[in-house]
């Protein structure tokens, strides 16, 4: 599981690669924490190369969303595969995130 954060066109982009399971969650949460300190920029979570997400992973997404919404920013999720999309659908997360 690798997490890369970079700025693109005035947006913060977090690129996640691999399997975001419960074991990888604490590390990923730490790696994505800089996103919570960013002011005034929207966030894109690039999941093109993410194979799987567990409920602990969803919690990280949720925390970022919550934080961003408090600051009036948007969070977009990009490029999820069918497997991950199913998880987002089942859990209802598809209702609270914006996708691009």
């Amino acid at each position: 599981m690798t997490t890369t954060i970079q700025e693109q066109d005035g947006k913060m982009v977090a690129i996640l690669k691999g399997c975001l399971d419960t074991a990888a969650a604490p590390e990923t949460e730490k790696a994505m924490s800089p996103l919570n300190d960013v002011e005034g920029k929207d966030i894109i979570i690039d999941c093109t190369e993410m194979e799987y997400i567990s409920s602990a992973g969803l919690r990280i997404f949720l925390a970022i969303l919550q934080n961003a919404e408090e600051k009036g920013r948007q969070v977009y999720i990009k490029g999820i595969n069918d497997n991950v999309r199913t998880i987002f659908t089942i859990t209802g997360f598809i209702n609270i995130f914006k996708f691009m």
Partner: protein
Amino acid sequence: MKKSKLSRHITWHVIGIMSFFNVLIIGAILVFVFRVSLVNSDMRGQYVVDGIEGKIESTLWAVHVGASNSRNEIERNMESPEQVFDALEREITVNQFMGCFAAFEPDYFEGQGRWFEAYLYHADPSTSSGIDSAHLERQQIGSPSHDYFNGPWYKKGLSRDRQGMGYLTVPYFDNSVDSAMYCSYVLPIVDRQGRKVGVYGVDLDYLWFNEVFSEVEKMVKREFFDNDENLQDRNGNIYFSVQMIDDKGNRILGSDSLDINILKAEQEDAFGNLGMKDLKGTPYYVNFKSIPYTDWTVAVIQHRNLVFAWGKILALVILLCMGIGCIVIFFFTRRSIRRATKPLGFLSESAKEVAKGNFDAPLPTFEHNDEVAQLRDSFDNMQQSLVKYIEDLKETTAQKASIESDLRIASEIQKGMLPEKFPTKEDRDDVQIFASLTPAKEVGGDLFDFYFRDEKLFFCIGDVSGKGVPASLFMAVIRSTFRTVSAHESMPDRIVTTMNKTIADMNKTLMFVTLFVGVLDLPTGRLHYCNAGHDAPLLIGTGVGELPCDNNIPVGFRPTWEYTLQETQIFTGTTIFLFTDGLTEAMDVDKAQFQMERVNDVATQALAQQQQEPRQLISMMTEAVHQFVGDAEQSDDLTMMAIQYIKENNQ
């Protein structure tokens, strides 16, 4: 304590270095002593040869004064042989010579033939108490048998400068007169025209020279050795000798029995006047000095043992001192090094004690604040750190044991929250239920619950995000909230919405739970349900199918979310199979997931085998998962609940 290897190592190292420099120093000292001995002996030799040369030269000077006056007298009277004889006679009387002669060039006097040598001498010198003309004999000794022209004395005498010194011959036997040994001092005779016409000579007694020489020799020996006799060592080797030799290396003067032939090897060097020489092949060193106006050479010969006598003693004393010094240093060094390294041995013993687990092993104390003491302090530090570390470890271990014990208790408490008694068809005529919950750790975040109220079955299944203790705490909250809320609400959407509000308001950690809440009306089989982000249950009746579910979000973080209500009809014999993602996402060793397809397959298989009753179904499903997972560690909590509606009168 066994002998320290380190101390031995250091000792030998130090001794090795010391020995190396010792050898260098000893070598330098020996070379120095050798040189000093040679220089010292050379100076002694030079001093003696200079002294003897001076003595002989001054003696010769006295002879020269008389002889040159006589020669002048001859030069004034050499008109005829008689005149020459008369002049000789006058001079021998005045100067008291033993004998004198005048030899002339070939055919100098007419009628005298080729050779003419006028010779005047005392006929019987042994009886003479004075010189008078009565005992003088005149002789003309030049003849073919005494062909003096080729005699060295004649040639040398003739070759001299009239104004300068003459020439002293080597001693010889004068067979022509008597058998005594003489030396002659010769000077050239020059006529009025300045031509050299002959040689004038004075006989000098060899014994007289010998006396002069012996005196000097004895004086020298007394001066250097307090002994004027033969200087011999215990082996009979003469160790100091003074000799006068001729140009052939034969002895002229000299009292002792030294074999003079050892000098002959030096002949080619003409007994040069340079410094002391080593006589190769003999144990002797020699100083030469040639006596001017002669072919004599004085030689001082010194035995090796004399040359190096003091040097040997000096060298021996130095070597002895250094040897004793070395031994003393060796013992002191060894003792010091042993004393210095001994504490290391003690420390080593202490270390062994510590290694055995005896952390309080006392450390030796040292007087000096050197490296060893520093090592000891470091060691002490380490010991204390070890003690503290071990104490910490014990404490941590104890804490861990305590936590494990707490977890076991927590696990029991959590199990206690779950329904333990599952109704079967023997107990009830409307439903039979079975469930199983296997946490990945001691405690988990999965939950299920069911109870009956007002002819209704209230049930739920949920999965808290994450696992372990945090999840288990959250699970306890969810479970008690479900019970509290469902006690007065009968519609699942109301139950879930109320639960969500309650929990989201106090949820700082953003944990959430996916929850399926169902309320089954037992008399009619009508099922009301609300799914908050949970996996859709399977319905296993005439076939296998998923219960359609709205995509509501999980419970716990959006207090304003309005959950939707759904409903369906459950027919008699149909089993509702609820599960958490621990089932679909159970992983084998290669991280492959069990997947929904397999769940469907097992359910279909169960239906085909008439095994859809709750207990049988869960047993089959558990078996299938175990087979799939194999030896892999359980990655997530796994919960299954099956509810079969069996009310007959509905049909």
